[in-house]
């Protein structure tokens, strides 16, 4: 809201784009909108604009996992957990010993403790592999990502020197730059509220995520996230996965405003009881 220290803060958005030459390199265009599916944006960068989604079960567990019974027995086969291969590079997640104990405790009490269940903002990188669509809105000065889950969003400021606001945020503070054709995003300023998955993988407020988005072709992004947190892990570790474009002509973000799905869980004991 209020910056107050204008001299220290460069305006996120100066008034207008400087008109730059429109380098529309026509690849087959799926919509009537010029530029919407061009391979490159007006400033010559890879065009990440679009609606994207992961297609894996990493949100259940970043590591190898077999299928298992869901927590609500009455929902049987419909709401149980699918199997999946690890998205973590190398040998698992390098927890410090005491942190590993906490992860195990989280995992054992997942249904009570996972912030996703309460509809809290998912954090980064989890927001990218929850399985909900998200839309990338790319401009030269900032890249905005709108997530369907919980209507979470984040702005990636394309200014690596932009000063951090110095406050903790669920979705972190994101600064981006291009390394060749790869968008590199440095995310800091996290609260310790979010988790990485439903297997209890967690972090502290010292979390530092470095994301890399590389277009593999028009409809796929190679997504990587390097995770550092000296309070929890002994070394940096990395996940990677493809992100898939939602290619339906009528694809659009809808709403998953989940506070209303969590209220009974959060406040049910305070509801007026019949007869009282």
């Amino acid at each position: 809201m209020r910056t107050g220290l204008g001299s220290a803060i460069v305006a996120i958005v100066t008034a207008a784009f400087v008109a730059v030459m429109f380098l529309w390199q026509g690849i087959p265009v799926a919509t009537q909108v010029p530029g919407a599916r061009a391979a490159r944006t007006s400033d010559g960068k890879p065009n990440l604009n679009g609606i994207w989604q992961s297609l894996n079960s990493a949100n259940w567990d970043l590591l190898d996992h077999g299928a298992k019974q869901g927590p609500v027995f009455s929902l049987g086969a419909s709401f149980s957990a699918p199997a999946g291969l690890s998205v973590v590079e190398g040998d698992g997640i390098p927890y410090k010993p005491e942190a590993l104990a906490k992860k195990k405790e989280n995992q054992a009490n997942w249904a009570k403790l996972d912030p996703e269940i309460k509809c809290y903002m998912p954090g980064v990188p989890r927001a990218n592999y929850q399985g909900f669509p998200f839309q990338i809105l790319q401009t030269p000065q900032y890249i905005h990502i709108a997530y369907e889950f919980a209507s979470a969003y984040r702005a990636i400021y394309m200014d690596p020197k932009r000063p951090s606001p110095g406050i903790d945020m669920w979705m972190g503070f994101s600064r981006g730059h291009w390394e060749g054709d790869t968008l590199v995003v440095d995310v800091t300023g996290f609260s310790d509220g979010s988790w990485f998955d439903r297997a209890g993988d967690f972090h502290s407020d010292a979390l530092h995520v470095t994301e890399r988005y590389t277009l593999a072709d028009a409809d796929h992004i190679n997504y990587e996230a390097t995770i550092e947190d000296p309070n929890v892990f002994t070394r940096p570790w990395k996940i990677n996965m493809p992100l898939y474009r939602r290619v339906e002509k009528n694809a659009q973000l809808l709403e998953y405003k989940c506070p209303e799905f969590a209220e009974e869980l959060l406040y049910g004991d305070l509801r007026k009881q019949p007869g009282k």
Partner: protein
Amino acid sequence: MRGPHGAMLGAAAILSLASVSMVAGQGSKPAAKTPPPVKKTTAAAPAPAPAKSASSKNARKWTPSARTPDGQPDLQGVYTFASLTPMERPASAGGKAELTPEEVAAIEKRAADNALKDNDRRRPGDPGTYNRFWGGGQEAKATTRTSLIVDPPDGRLPPLTEKAKKLGIAQNRLSRLDFGPADSWLDRDPYERCIAREVPRTGGNNPGAQIVQTPGYVTIVYEAMHDTRVIPLDGRPHVGAHIRLWNGDSRGRWEGNTLVVDTTNFSDSQTFFGAPAGQMHLTERFTRVDADTISYEATINDPATWTRPWTFILPWYHSDDYEEIFEYACHEGNYNSMSGILGGAREKERQAAEAAAKGKK
């Protein structure tokens, strides 16, 4: 951000909306107790836009022919729609629609002087409420009119339909927020439940938005309730009638330099002025009038609630005090508030039952 400003930001970013108390959400830094010093606004308010900030530190360039790279008229920027002008023309206006520049300046000065004072009308035990800092603070501006409503010409909401009268929605919405029933969270406003704000937005706390334009889309990013309206411009039809959305389903088109956004498919759980919004057809018109100002006009056509359509004009303007949209973790910090509202109601019931039992003895 550093110092007290940074701490204040923390509170703003995780502002919890429940009316009974304001809590800091998880992961927040402690909130500052002292607001920053009052910055005097500049006087004079040229019509019809709000007074321009003469102290704009960040030169904003714009001409009517400015276009985004894909050829859209350029609306981009961060704006606030805080306004000192009431939605409806008050009786004190004596039927007058327009204000003189001197009257506008007086309204803005009075508001700036009082912006950060404690709104000390609390009852004993009441934790207090927001002062104007939260609603745009000392920078909030007045329009040159006595009401935001421009149609009907009397500046007042049109009469309610018979159906709406039966629903009893004429009551002041704020009184519902403060004192309404609390048998369950479902009795509370979606705003208080951290689900949604009204569409169209008419002010309130954290009244800021960013307009982002990309090929084929205009996107509005609202700070309060961290909502994004991604508005396609490709002429596609609305989603089917069975999909109902808190923010509705928006389609945009350009009419000259004006972005016209047509929104339907509102959920009946969503409210506007206390009325279920399910039948509302909203037409918004965004026109940039200068480097710092967008004229925002909204026409509400809701035959279930009002006997005729009505229109208000609320300027969106640049403010040096509102140049960035921050995270607004509402639900994440709402547990104590909603638990307090419901738990307080249960406690009152318990005390009443106890008193009744005593009376019987």
